[in-house]
């Protein structure tokens, strides 16, 4: 369906040096509030390592209104920490003049989500088909999709027009119709959007970029519709040329181009930043998606990444489907831990949040606390009780974000399936999710509540409880939110990006071994025998039980798991499996709580169950 949206071919002011001449890399990520810089250096053995990190406030807003000031400040911190001169007297980033030059870097690259990131409106004829493909293209390119307009989205045309008028997108992506198919509907869509004149964020001087990626035969009519002042139309290949196939690459590439040439060019100081960089600036989430795709491709695995922030939660996945990797990204706009914490509680329901809590808490007081966190989002939990509650909220935010992701990451909808009589017994409809937890190999966590949890066990538990991985799944976290930097590095030096990703970016927490299925509490679920890495453990896990076995980072062990009938750990129901497992800062989590994971209805019983799990996983030791 798609491939990594490498930025090759995009315009940037400086030519990118060939990979063999890249030994020192400076990379920044200009976030909404902080600009983070990292230094990557080639080691004497030829490998690449991240060596230093600096950060400074982002400076896109007044009184500075120049993003490069924050970049200079963050790189100056790198300079001070590394002892290597990286910033000249004018604040510009220094390039090395020769391989022996002790100062400067070989390339400087950057991502950006400053100023709220890339905000788009997408439109398609049929909500579940072209509109959904358009949404996938925009999300995959790293955009926030403000709304999706479709001919059949249940809104009346005047309501759609009203909505378009209210939005202030950076650009609009329009799709619709297969090549050679009906043109009328997609032209109609364009005719709704043009007179509604969506107002861009950057003021009336800004010509709103419109990307048309629909039926190629409708392109001339669409051109006529947008042939006026205020619009800048680009036509690219249809993102759904036939019903059975998505072709998201050209639309994504064009989104990146437009992001750089139009959106970035209007953000304060970005014209300078574009001239500084040796590769095109990428939207931060787009870069994270690229590095995840790169690791999945190189290791031949299925992976899910999550980034939970204060306002939003991004979920990225790469799953093999019909022999090729399929990438998906979703942004759950109002699931987050500070600005959106109240929305998590509203969407999940307070009862669902509190089911993860093993302590006595007063609901009225908790509701007030949630609102107080929402209005004062920078506060941190001081007490254990506050931490337990916050991590309970995080479980629900992650769970809901993953549900949304699974609903979105599906096989193509609207595809006609030819069925035989045999298929009648195993009907697999189009539009089913391709996210399969049993096939998930790696689950990567990032974002404050996961990255900064006081104990790694807490991070692992939040991941397992909310994502419910099945079979064998490695759990990891992004040490210092370096994935954006590595995503853009991957576009110019894949090897360096991968080496840093494996050695410095990922902190392996361990491996989750979980049985799929449900049973009776206390009855046998699976037996295990684990040897190696200092472990020699065997026993039986009862249904409803969870256990932590310490297996240190860098250690491996052989795990032989024999599930009871009705339970599956990867080889099929009741079938034994033997695999090598990797340890980590947490170790091995043997999980016999069943999938789907359910909790007792009775509050007393539920609290006692959670307390047992908390103890078994050593989450909040005294």
């Amino acid at each position, binding site marked *: 369906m798609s491939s990594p949206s490498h930025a090759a071919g995009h315009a940037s002011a400086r030519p990118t040096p060939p990979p063999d001449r890249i030994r020192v890399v400076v990379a920044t990520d200009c976030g*909404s509030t902080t600009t983070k810089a990292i230094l990557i250096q080639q080691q004497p053995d030829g490998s690449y390592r991240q060596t230093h990190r600096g950060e400074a406030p982002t400076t896109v*807003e007044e009184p500075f209104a120049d993003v490069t000031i924050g970049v200079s400040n963050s790189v100056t911190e790198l300079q001070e920490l590394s002892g290597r001169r990286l910033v000249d007297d004018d604040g510009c980033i220094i390039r090395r003049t020769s391989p022996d030059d002790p100062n400067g870097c070989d390339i400087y690259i950057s991502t950006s989500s400053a100023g*709220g990131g890339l905000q788009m409106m997408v439109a398609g004829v049929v909500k579940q088909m072209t509109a959904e493909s358009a949404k996938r293209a925009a999300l995959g390119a790293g955009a926030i999709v403000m709304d999706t307009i479709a001919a059949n989205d249940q809104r009346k*045309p*005047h309501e759609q*027009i*009203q909505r378009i008028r209210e939005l202030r997108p950076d650009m609009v992506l329009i799709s619709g119709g297969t090549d050679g198919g009906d*043109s*009328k*509907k997609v*032209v*109609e869509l364009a*005719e*709704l959007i043009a*007179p*509604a*004149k969506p107002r861009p964020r950057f003021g*009336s001087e800004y010509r709103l970029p419109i990307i048309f990626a629909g039926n190629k035969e*409708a392109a001339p*009519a669409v051109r*006529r519709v947008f042939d006026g002042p205020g619009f800048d139309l680009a036509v690219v290949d249809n993102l759904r040329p036939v019903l059975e196939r998505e072709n998201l690459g050209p639309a994504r590439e064009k989104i990146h181009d437009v992001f750089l040439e139009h959106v970035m060019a209007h953000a304060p100081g970005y014209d300078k930043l574009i001239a500084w960089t040796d590769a095109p600036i990428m939207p931060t989430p787009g870069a994270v998606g690229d590095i995840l795709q790169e690791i999945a491709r190189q290791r031949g695995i299925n992976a899910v990444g999550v980034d939970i922030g204060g*306002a939003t939660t991004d979920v990225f996945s790469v799953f093999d489907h019909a022999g090729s990797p399929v990438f998906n990204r979703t942004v759950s706009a*109002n699931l987050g831990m500070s*600005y*959106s914490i*109240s*929305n998590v*509680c*509203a*969407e999940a329901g307070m009862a669902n949040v509190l089911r993860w809590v093993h302590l006595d808490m007063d609901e*009225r*007081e908790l*509701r*007030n*606390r*949630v*609102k*107080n*966190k*929402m*209005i*004062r*989002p*920078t*506060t*941190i*939990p*001081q*007490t*254990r009780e*506050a*931490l337990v509650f916050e991590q309970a909220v995080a479980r629900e935010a992650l769970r809901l974000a993953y549900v949304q992701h699974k609903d979105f990451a599906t096989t193509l909808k609207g595809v006609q399936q030819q069925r035989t009589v045999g298929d009648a017994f195993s009907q697999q409809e189009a539009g089913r999710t391709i996210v399969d937890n049993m096939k998930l190999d790696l689950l990567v966590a990032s974002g404050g509540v996961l990255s*900064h949890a*006081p*104990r790694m066990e807490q991070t692992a538990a939040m991941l397992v409880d909310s994502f419910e991985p099945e079979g064998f799944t490695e759990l990891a976290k992004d040490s210092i939110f370096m994935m954006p930097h590595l995503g853009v590095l991957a576009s110019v030096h894949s090897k360096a990006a991968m080496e840093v990703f494996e050695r410095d970016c990922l902190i392996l927490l361990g491996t989750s071994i979980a049985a799929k299925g449900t049973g009776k509490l206390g009855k046998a679920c699976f037996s295990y025998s684990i040897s190696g890495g200092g472990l020699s453990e065997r026993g039986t896990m009862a249904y409803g039980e969870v256990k932590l076995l310490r297996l240190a980072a860098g250690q491996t062990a052989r795990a032989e798991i024999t599930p009871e009938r009705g339970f599956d750990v990867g080889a099929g129901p009741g079938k034994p499996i033997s695999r090598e497992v990797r340890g980590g800062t947490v170790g091995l989590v043997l999980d016999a709580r069943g999938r789907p994971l359910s909790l007792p209805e009775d509050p007393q019983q539920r609290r006692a169950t959670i307390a047992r799990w908390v103890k078994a996983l050593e989450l*909040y030791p005294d």
Partner: protein
Amino acid sequence: MAKAYTPGLKVSARTRHRARRLLPVPGEVRVKQGDRVSADTVVAETFTEGDLTPMKLASLLGCTPKELPSLMLKPVGAAVTKDEPIARSKGIFGFGKVEVKAAATGVLESVSDSSGMAIIRGEKLPIRVLAYMPGQVVEVLPAEGVVIENDASLVQGIFGVGGETFGTIALACKSRDEELHEDLITPAMKGAVIVGGARMTATAVRRARDVGAAAVVSGGMDDQDLRDFLGYDLGVAITGSEKTGLTVVITEGFGEISMARRTFALLAAHAGRPASVNGATQIRAGVMRPELVVPLDGLDPSKLSGLEAAKDSGHESGVLEVGTLVRVIRDPHFGVIGTVAALPEQPAVLGSGSKARVLEVAVENAGRITVPRANVELIEG
């Protein structure tokens, strides 16, 4: 001396307050530089393009999009009235002609021979910007709006709902820690900005709305009560457009919390004076806090003398240093007010197990407490 920076809410007895009053789209400014305006003066006005009404004419007529232009009874650009015939099919041998009537009044903006759709644009819609705050027009931004200035007392709240309004301050509570109950609200408070003390109850807020008050301001409120008042659970703190008929501002936070001493004293000193209130709150991307502005026109200066003295504490704005007045904004000490007693350099391990930089706060009659630096805010003058 150790210093750190932290955000705070402004509570000021006297400040030169400026209000930028801008149109969302270019238009006409109705006042001149130097004009004195009252809160309800229209300072700028414009018209937005009218609503669009699309009509699938080709489908309605049973023709192809290409045939449509020849079947139109009205040309593009013509004024049309609702239910006026605008297109007619040819029928078969002149029989069975279908006539389509305009779905709205306006101008026929376009007729597409690609999609068969016609669009009628309705009459222009007026947008008016009021002065909101009495004062003097000190700057005219041509076609955009004006800047109005006045000496005023300013109280920023922490959270509010409802938009801009104005009225006379009516003090309902006798002290900053008295809860605002419905029996304290009287019909005489119609059009007023009601000032409470500590938590305001749901029934008090409803009563304020029922008597026709403009706004109600108090120290705290229960989330459950806010939910009952709004009729839904507020997910994200972007407010100001609620149509609740009453602007509500809380000055300290959610729960049982008293209004800060200085805030209450300031508002009490202004009882009976006109105030402008805006509940609009936005926590993300350009923080906007609700506000209460009391212009000082014709005020006896002695009324504020005691309050103004408190303002000059000799501390730098936004800086957290020993001696600055702070409010703890997270449990377990939520709402406690005290002065910074120490700013240790080294991070400390909190009860949660996290490591964070902390400070010590000296609390009147309660000794010292240690809290994370992230969990305090300045009380700024």
